[in-house]
């Protein structure tokens, strides 16, 4: 059995399957926020597996997340916190349909989302 057990160890390289993704929000007029939190209405969904991921929190205009390589439709509704105490809500809905889905295929990738203020 020891022989079998040692022979059965697999060598999966997860770096090949996953991509380290930086999501960068491009706010109107090049504004920079201090932090941001994605709202419940946001989603990132892989088109083939239908797996859903979360944006999590943003530091400044950037969120870092690990995604399985794939084709993603996404919607980002986000609450923005500015250094002067202002709180605003912004949205990007450019990639909610299959035709505009984003390919995430590189080991490291940056996704830039043009945001519009909705509140």
């Amino acid at each position, binding site marked *: 059995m020891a022989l079998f057990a040692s022979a059965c160890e697999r060598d*999966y390289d*997860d770096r090949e399957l996953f991509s380290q993704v930086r999501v960068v929000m491009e706010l109107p007029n090049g504004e920079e926020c201090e932090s941001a939190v994605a709202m419940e209405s946001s989603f990132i969904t892989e088109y083939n597996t239908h*797996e859903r991921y979360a944006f999590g929190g943003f530091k400044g205009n950037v969120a870092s997340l690990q995604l399985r*390589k794939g084709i993603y439709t996404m919607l980002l509704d986000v609450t923005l916190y500015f250094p002067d105490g202002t709180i605003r809500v912004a949205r990007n809905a450019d990639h909610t349909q299959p035709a505009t889905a984003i390919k995430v*295929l590189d080991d490291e990738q940056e996704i830039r989302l043009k945001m519009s203020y909705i509140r």
Partner: protein
Amino acid sequence: MKRISIILLCLVMALPALSRPRRDSLSVVERVARADDALTSIGEAAYDGSVAASAYRRKVSLSSLAIGYDLRREQEAMLQAEGDGLSAGRFNAESYMHLNEHSTVEASASYFRGVKRNVRWNSSSDYSLLWPYIGADSIGGDLSSEQYMFGGSYAHRAERFAYGVGASYRAMHEFRRVDPRPRNITSDLQAQLSGGYNFSSYHLGAAIGVRVYSQEHSVDYFSMAGANTSQLPMTGLGTYYDRFAGSSSDYTNYEFDGVGYNISLQLVPTQSEGWRAVVGYKSLSIKRLLPQINNTPLTKLIVDELSASVAFRSEGSRIRWAVGAEGRYEIRRGEENLLNTGSLSSNIVLATFTMYECHTAEAAITGGVEFVRDWGYLFLRPRVELLSVDAGYRYPERRMEFATADGALDIGARYVSDKWLIDAEIGGGYVVGLSHSLFMPADTEKAMREMVSSQCANFASDRLHLGVKVSAQRSLNSRLALFLSGAWQMYERNSLMGNVAQIEAGIRF
């Protein structure tokens, strides 16, 4: 299809007459007694993979025609994908014939028709070949099956060299008459070339073979109320390719296209006594395509197998014995294609990832001894077998491992007279589950969790198995005999019983 089958069958049947075989001076009882005994199965693998080596399998020619009936009933299916029962009738014709001192031909034809009961989580044919990349649904039902198979080979033996060529073809049709209605048509062609060198009293040879496999898999729903379940393109350990799951014909039709090869080296004795050994490697890759969506390639299954067997058989006037060891190591890899969104009506493969991997290791030691008597022999045949399976799905991570050990003993006797040849054996053993573990994500669908859990628990469970086999043959004259045989096997695990019975009748000549 049936017409072709009948023509081929007739050709196979006519082969002995056409080929004018060397007339055996032995009676049919003596030929059966020499061709097949309680030790034959030990080291038999060395002959199976090579037509040239198979020419040394027996000294005698023997042909048979038989009809049979198979019955399997399980209180709970050991493997849901194969159902909890089987009722099937079959016809087999086999011929092994030395035409002269140098030429040997083998031919076989078979027809099988039956019904598998309560098949679940599988709508594809050839589950044992294709798993885990099958189509599946949660409802299932009985599955009717019809299969034809033909094979033939020719081997030439010279003093120093021997070579052989052979081919076989199998066609299968499986279907169900209530929703969901799978209809699968399979064709499986194999061909082989082999050759070798004779030295001392041994034949050392090599064989190379190819295999071409295809299965058209389709599932329909006729109910006016609509589909009663979805078809799931399974991808291992309860996962499936979610995007192409559904009841639309785009998603319920698959095509499996496979191609493979095998190579092996054999050592067999030119007499019945001596060493026999084989080491072989085979590889098979099978693509799963969606024919209704421009043959979109979904997955590819790659099965690599390394096997080896070594055995020794000793002939004696009072005691004959044999001992053999065999092992097999299989790696089954599943590759999934990452497809674009198909928004321009074509699904382009953007990347391919190995998502599923299963390692199976098997090792067995078998021994056997025949105590020769004036009227036949008594025999003992013990066997110990180890099995280890380790399967994993990469993300979301799932893992299943189990290992078992099986100890078994068969005892029996053969009675031989001028007209009669009677075999009787009883056997039994116990499978011990050495270990098992299963890891699945907490959010796994309940039905999938139950399906995978039951499979792991069933195969890793302790179980008792018993069997009885009886066969009687009576000569009508020196060249022709009638035979009737029956076998029954049962297993018991966790108070659940499974029974398999077979009965067969026919002629040998």
